[in-house]
């Protein structure tokens, strides 16, 4: 791999790595190990988690915090919502991004159009929260609706909707913000992959009489499959850790709780439960991580 001539100095590599390894150890590795330890202790990290068990109630001993993380109704809701986010948001952002990348590929104002879709990526979550307030706002006092969606609905003769507090729809309202924020990210990567597909092959199959639908499924899609897998794993990790959108818009109220927000809420009040949730979150991401490492290994072998 490394040319033999470059193998000079046993110490040299470590000098180059030292600052990075030091910082990553202090800020990521040390807290991760600390988290494992704290997850077995009580709320104030002073005694074993087993001491928090109540007599006559189910108890998982030293893993009591994990009983909370896996059986508490709030957590079950958060796990359900995260699953919902994964099932809807990952295909949603990828399909949306791919669809737009394919369309924009055919028009002359492609770069301007893509910049508009990509722009939300450069905006803070706090800013996005304020932006979407003016979309989802509801005036219940009888005054005119200043939220765009409700103004449209009321203008068409309907009833104003509480987009963020109605448990039947608020998760979807939040996911819409998520799609708005992340579709541009998927589009950008997929668009680059589409551009990499040999145009002559596409043209040849069109000349041979294939319609656009067949060209996409039989030629384009197989060629960008690897990229789609990459975007899927990246999005899956992002969505598993989803926090900001929920924190800013509803703070997990009205049935919109997610794992990372639950963990953040408990940081101050119950370090044991908070860290147990963190461990669960990490465990959920491990399969995706192993998948990524294997992919990297294959790429390295091909280098």
């Amino acid at each position, binding site marked *: 791999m490394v040319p033999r001539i470059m193998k000079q100095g046993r110490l040299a590599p470590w000098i180059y790595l030292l600052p990075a390894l030091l*910082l990553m150890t202090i800020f990521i590795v040390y807290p991760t190990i600390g988290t494992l330890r704290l997850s077995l202790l009580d709320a104030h990290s002073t005694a074993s988690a087993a001491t928090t068990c109540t007599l006559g109630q189910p108890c998982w001993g030293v893993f009591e915090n994990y009983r909370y993380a896996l059986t508490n109704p709030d957590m079950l809701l958060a796990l359900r919502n995260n699953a919902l986010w994964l099932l809807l948001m990952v295909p949603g952002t990828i399909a949306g991004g791919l669809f737009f990348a394919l369309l924009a590929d055919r028009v002359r104002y492609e770069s301007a159009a893509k*910049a508009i879709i990509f722009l939300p990526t450069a905006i*803070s979550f706090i800013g996005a929260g304020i932006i979407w307030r003016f979309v989802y706002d509801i005036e219940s006092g009888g005054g005119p609706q200043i939220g765009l969606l409700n103004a449209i609905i009321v203008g068409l003769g309907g009833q104003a909707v509480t987009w963020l507090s109605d448990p039947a729809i608020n998760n979807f309202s939040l996911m819409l913000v998520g799609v708005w924020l992340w579709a541009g990210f998927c589009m950008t990567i997929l668009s680059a992959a589409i551009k990499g597909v040999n145009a002559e092959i596409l043209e040849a199959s069109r000349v041979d009489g294939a319609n656009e639908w067949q060209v996409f499924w039989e030629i384009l899609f197989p060629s960008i499959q690897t990229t789609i897998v990459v975007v899927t794993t990246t999005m899956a990790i992002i969505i598993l850790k989803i*926090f900001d959108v929920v924190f800013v818009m509803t703070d997990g109220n009205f049935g919109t709780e997610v794992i990372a927000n639950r963990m953040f809420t408990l940081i101050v009040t119950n370090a044991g439960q908070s860290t147990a949730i963190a461990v669960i979150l990490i465990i959920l991401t491990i399969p995706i991580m192993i998948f990524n490492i294997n992919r990297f290994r294959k790429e390295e072998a091909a280098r």
Partner: protein
Amino acid sequence: MKPMARFNRFFSRLPLHIAVILMCVLWIIPTLGLFVTSFRSRQAVSSMGWWETFLPQPQAVGKPEYTQYCTACHGPTGKSLPAADLSSQSMVNQYPSAASLLLMLRKPVNGAPHLLNKALPTTPTAALNALTPIVTYLQTLSGQGQNTNRLSLSNYVDAIVGYKGTQDYLSDCKNNVASTKAVFNCNISDVANPAGMGDALINTLIVAIPTTLLVIVIAALAAYAFAWLDFKGRQWLFALLIGLQIVPLQMSLVPIAQLYVKLNMQSTFLGIWLFHTGFGLPYAIYLIRNFVGSLPREMFESAYLDGANHWAAFRRLALPLSMPAIASLGIFQFIWVWNDFLVAKIFLSSHPVLTVQITNLIDPRGQNWHILTGAAFLSFLIPMIVFFAFQRSFVHGLLAGSVKG
């Protein structure tokens, strides 16, 4: 024949154009709404949708209602009762909404019901519906009505100085409002008010710029080692590095906060620089390593044959040649730190950055959305400039990190 063919081509592609433009419009509307809102008056923000800025405003809205309920005592111009002059702005400003006007009307005047023998509709909703046009008309009388659609920078001024008063900063300063004078100097020095976005902008720059530089330098060194130096456990360590990318940031908050208390480093710029750098490194190293690793091997080999050592190869070859990756990483890292809220909230509470300052400006009763609009756009300013100026690099950074490039 030729123009006809062109027309046919345009016509057959029409659905495509409609789809692309429709999606762009849908994507830009939420941001555009906030942008328009940020120039509107406080009253307009809370009483009308932003899109009404573009609609013609009928001048005499509410006149029939005003005539029905108010003319008898206040007169057609609102000036008949000097003690309750409806053409004075300060009077009308106390009743910015139908609800506040309703409360006032329910209070008796000189022992008699305010509206004397004229009764308002009994249900609250109907009463509010009757009063809303009157509020609009009162604003017209006091000379503000025509102004509800006037656009100004006053929300931005209020956000920069962090003004949370009843009116806007400029007019309250001009009118020497006592509560304003108690807190503000009413001159340019207010820009540095620690509760305002001006001060937060400086704090954000102090956080974002050194962090970005630190990440670039440290990651470039490590990436060079991962790509072109041989050491035991190289593959293993790099696999671990990929793994570190998934660690959720929230996990480090408590342990590091405790550590900072021990080291007396809480709420220091050094503390937040190091934290951001630590968390930025796995992705940064991964990105630069992919780029440095794809440089031609022969180039490094011949440099070594010519007697170059590691430092020379790093400084003269690896660093300059991976500038595209470093540039995109820099932009990516800068925008990421700029938009961060959580880390700054916890590790830099005494020097609020822009995102934290926005949440500080929020009024718990929801009375000051107008300031938040200005504040939000101020916080977008730099990332948007960076984004449009370096769009290609930014996109390239995303690609290099996700697809090996």
